[in-house]
């Protein structure tokens, strides 16, 4: 297939992702401004990071005046899954994916883009991935801008209610697999319980570090009790 056709196909497959990102990032824009960032800063964060959980936690670190080491560790822990996805996707790339292409397309490895690309039968071509990343990023960045900018124009009741948007999405990500696999249910419950204990029993622990400690502890427990078979990536 020609480069142009591949690019257009990637854009087409990216439309549902972009639309989804648009509404969720609206919530991120509101949250970022509430945490004291400017509209420009919020938009820039979305353009440079393209990830919901990491950005939400990052804004938390900025708002709390955490250290840069804390910021780096928080991002590493929350986004380490992208390294796994990148590893898995790197096995599916077409020979046209030279190192510069890999370094460019790496920017756009998100849960959703990975999901769509990983499900393809044929090898992934650079233009296809670029088209998808373009649409997804456009939705993510413009949604953030609108949320940050218009968030202050909406009635306070409404912006307050929109604050739950991202958390609602996180719940939608973790519940269906937890329902299917008791190992994931265990991991999720364990992490939530630890996090609640940290919040009320160890209030001096910053939110970022609490997420890292709870996430790692619960994952170690789950990995020891429910080791994964070789098959799943």
């Amino acid at each position, binding site marked *: 297939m020609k480069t142009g056709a591949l690019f257009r196909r990637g854009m087409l497959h990216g439309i549902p992702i972009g639309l*989804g990102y648009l509404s*969720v990032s609206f919530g991120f824009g509101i949250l970022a401004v509430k945490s004291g*960032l400017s509209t420009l800063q919020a938009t*820039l*964060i979305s353009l*440079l*990071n393209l*990830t919901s959980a*990491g950005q*939400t936690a990052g804004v938390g670190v900025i708002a709390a*005046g955490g250290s*840069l080491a804390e910021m*780096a560790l928080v991002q590493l*822990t*929350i986004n*380490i*899954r*992208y*390294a*796994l996805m990148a590893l898995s*996707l*790197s*096995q599916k790339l077409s020979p046209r994916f030279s*190192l510069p292409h*890999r*370094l460019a*397309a*790496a920017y756009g490895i998100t849960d959703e883009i990975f999901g769509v690309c990983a499900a393809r039968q044929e090898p992934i071509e650079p233009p296809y991935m670029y088209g998808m990343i373009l649409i997804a990023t456009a939705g993510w960045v413009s949604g953030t801008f609108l949320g940050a900018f218009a968030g202050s124009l909406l009635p306070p*009741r409404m912006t*307050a*209610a929109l*604050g*739950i*948007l*991202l*958390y*609602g999405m996180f*719940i*939608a*990500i973790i519940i*269906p697999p*937890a329902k299917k696999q008791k190992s994931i249910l265990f*991991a*999720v*419950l364990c*992490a*939530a319980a630890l*996090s*609640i204990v940290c*919040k009320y029993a160890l209030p001096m622990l910053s939110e970022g570090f*609490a*997420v890292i400690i709870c996430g790692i502890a*619960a*994952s*170690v427990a*789950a*990995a020891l009790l*429910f*080791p*994964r078979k070789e098959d799943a990536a």
Partner: protein
Amino acid sequence: MSTAIYIAVMAGVTYLIRALPFGFFQKKIKSQFLRSFLYYIPYTVLSAMTFPAILYSTGSTVTAAVGTGVALILAYFGLPLIAVALAASLAAFLTGLFL
């Protein structure tokens, strides 16, 4: 500290996490423990980020609790991410009208 430095660190770390394995690694991770650990990480991190923070996300524990309940139920029935997120928000908003 300047916000720009935070943003630079955040973006740099996030990019490297994606680019180093995508650009340079080709081999599979062999250790079963490590593979299992990495497999569970997204779920545990999202769970720890959500609970109990979600209860403080709307400025009212009551509206947040209703939104959380709605999200849990709809997610249980496997509705799309966006539907769950928007319904949680709508539920919190509507509850707020009665307070």
